[in-house]
């Protein structure tokens, strides 16, 4: 039997017998992402829907001064509530999202044809209230427009006179592009599952083996260290890919539970998404496997390796965080940067946008090149005399 395969097989068997590795690599790692993603998106979507469809509650102070206005509001999905004693304080303390105050002289002003004033109290730093404020403002504007048109017509004038310019907004965004933020985290969840899948083997096969003092006897066998390393990398890679595949399966299953159709969005978690995502992740998983093993080779103990690798897991969050804050336009060169390219491709795939062959080739080429470079460095470290000697 080939020595590389012997090492590979032994690492797989040994780690399949470790409950901690199984739980972390094949259960928690693959399921964490899909569960979080589905949970978060469902929450976001249902909250968005609630806001637009549900009647909003508006505390109104002085409702008795403007019965017609209040009736209009009620007809347009506003539930009138009694106002608190100190409206300003209540809004500032975030006890109320907004308060509408109608002054006592409202009726007088209205009747004499002057501009009547109502006060809308809100806190613009409270983003949660923004959509309610916007809806109430629009409803009040509509009332104002309607009353104004009626007054003009009563005087025999055309309502068009009072509005020389009308702005017609034509939003060109698609539901997919509006939910960009929603998807910025998705590639990270996939990468995370691959990282978690390989992490325990990377530590166990290098830092762990040295700590348990079994690396020195292993190196006394007539097998080149690079071949031993190859077997260990293959086992780590296999676990990482298994974790990623399970994660994609879980996304495919859980994606059905996201109520995307309610906001007219298309989410593609089907076989095509899974296949292309798996392909474009291949070089990144290989790169991660080599990096994890390289870092473990430098660590003096299992614990130390675990600390370093946990920090390494934060690195793939960078493009996700960056693209969420600064929505960059995808340039061709970005597809040649490992991590960034996976991020872009996965995001495109899930939005059912096309990924060109050239983009995919750039992603694969640069990824495998980077992985090969790190693998070469790891092989050099494996050759060092210090590696085998513990303590």
């Amino acid at each position: 039997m080939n020595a590389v395969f012997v090492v590979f097989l032994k690492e797989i068997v040994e780690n399949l017998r470790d409950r901690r590795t199984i739980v972390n690599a094949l259960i928690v790692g693959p399921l964490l992402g899909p569960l979080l993603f589905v949970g978060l998106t469902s929450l976001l979507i249902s909250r968005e829907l609630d806001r637009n469809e549900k009647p909003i509650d508006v505390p109104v102070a002085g409702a008795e001064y403007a019965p017609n206005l209040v009736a209009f509001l009620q007809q347009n999905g506003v539930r009138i509530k009694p106002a608190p004693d100190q409206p300003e304080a209540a809004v500032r303390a975030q006890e109320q999202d907004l308060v509408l105050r109608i002054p006592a002289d409202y009726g007088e002003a209205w009747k004499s044809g002057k501009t009547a004033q109502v006060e809308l109290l809100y806190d613009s730093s409270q983003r949660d209230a923004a959509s309610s404020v916007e809806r109430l403002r629009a409803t009040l504007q509509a009332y104002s427009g309607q009353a104004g048109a009626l007054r003009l017509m009563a005087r025999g004038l055309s309502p068009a006179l009072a509005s020389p310019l009308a702005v017609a907004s034509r939003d060109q965004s698609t539901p997919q592009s509006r939910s960009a933020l929603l998807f910025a985290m998705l590639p990270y969840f996939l990468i995370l599952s691959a990282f978690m899948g390989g992490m325990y083997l990377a530590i166990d096969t290098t830092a762990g083996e040295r700590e348990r003092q079994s690396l020195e006897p292993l190196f006394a066998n007539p097998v080149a260290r690079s071949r031993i390393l190859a077997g260990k990398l293959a086992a780590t890679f296999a676990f990482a890919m298994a974790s990623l595949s399970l994660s994609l399966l879980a996304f495919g299953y859980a994606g059905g539970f996201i109520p995307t159709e309610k906001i007219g969005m298309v989410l593609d978690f089907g076989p095509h998404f899974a296949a292309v995502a798996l392909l474009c992740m291949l070089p990144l998983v290989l790169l991660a496997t080599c990096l994890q093993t390289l870092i473990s080779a430098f660590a003096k103990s299992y614990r130390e390796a675990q600390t370093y690798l946990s920090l390494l897991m934060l690195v793939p969050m960078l493009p996700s965080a960056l693209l969420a804050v600064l929505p960059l336009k995808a340039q061709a060169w970005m597809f040649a940067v490992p991590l960034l390219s996976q991020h872009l491709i996965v995001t495109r795939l899930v939005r059912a946008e096309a990924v060109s062959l050239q983009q995919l080739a750039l992603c694969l080429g640069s990824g495998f090149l980077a992985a090969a470079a790190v693998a070469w460095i790891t092989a050099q470290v494996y050759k060092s005399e210090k590696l085998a000697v513990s303590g």
Partner: protein
Amino acid sequence: MIEVDDLHKAFGKVQAVAGVSFAARDGEITGLLGPNGAGKTTTLRMLYTLMTPDRGSVRVDGIDAATDANAVRRRLGVLPDARGLYKRLSARENIEYFARLQGLDAATTRTRCDALIAALEMADIAERRSEGFSQGQRVKTAIARALVHDPRNIILDEPTNGLDVMATRAMRRFLLQLREEGRCVLFSSHIMQEVAALCDRIVVIAKGRVVAAGTADDLRAQTGEANLEEAFVRIIGSDEGLAA
């Protein structure tokens, strides 16, 4: 047959080995005696090609370790100072892993494993996972996997370290049996009684150098001491780091 010529090895400014030469012959037990920190483990590590000497050469059965390390490793059975097992594998699986790495076929692997499990009296632990093994059981498993490819030359670094009296006696019997089979046995120790009781030839190392070599009688004659223990102390210059 293991021949060592003028080995040197430094770690930074520390000269761990500074000129070690000796030969360990087939059918003999050669003991490497020296106080702790004398350079025994480093010397052995260069023998089984874990480390490359700064200067000097190692030849096993006439093969130069510098030119064909894999051929040398194939001819060596090694029980290093580090003897960690894979605790999620059974004793037999631990041995089989090394057999496959040595390139043995399935049939040979099985017969060699069975033979070693019988010879080392470890049938009761063969199918058990090695997690929770006693020190003696661990050493037995480590020896079995070191000898699975039936090597002509055997290197053991402090083989009785941490063993109780019964296990130590069993180990000594086993070393004598290996000698009877005509193998070349080389082991290191800082325990004088053990070296005196077992070895055909003794190489005394202190401060990275060979300070004396020969049979027990040679060493006694050389120092003029009738007592071997006194002879060692005289050779090394102090009794620090030695155990009776």
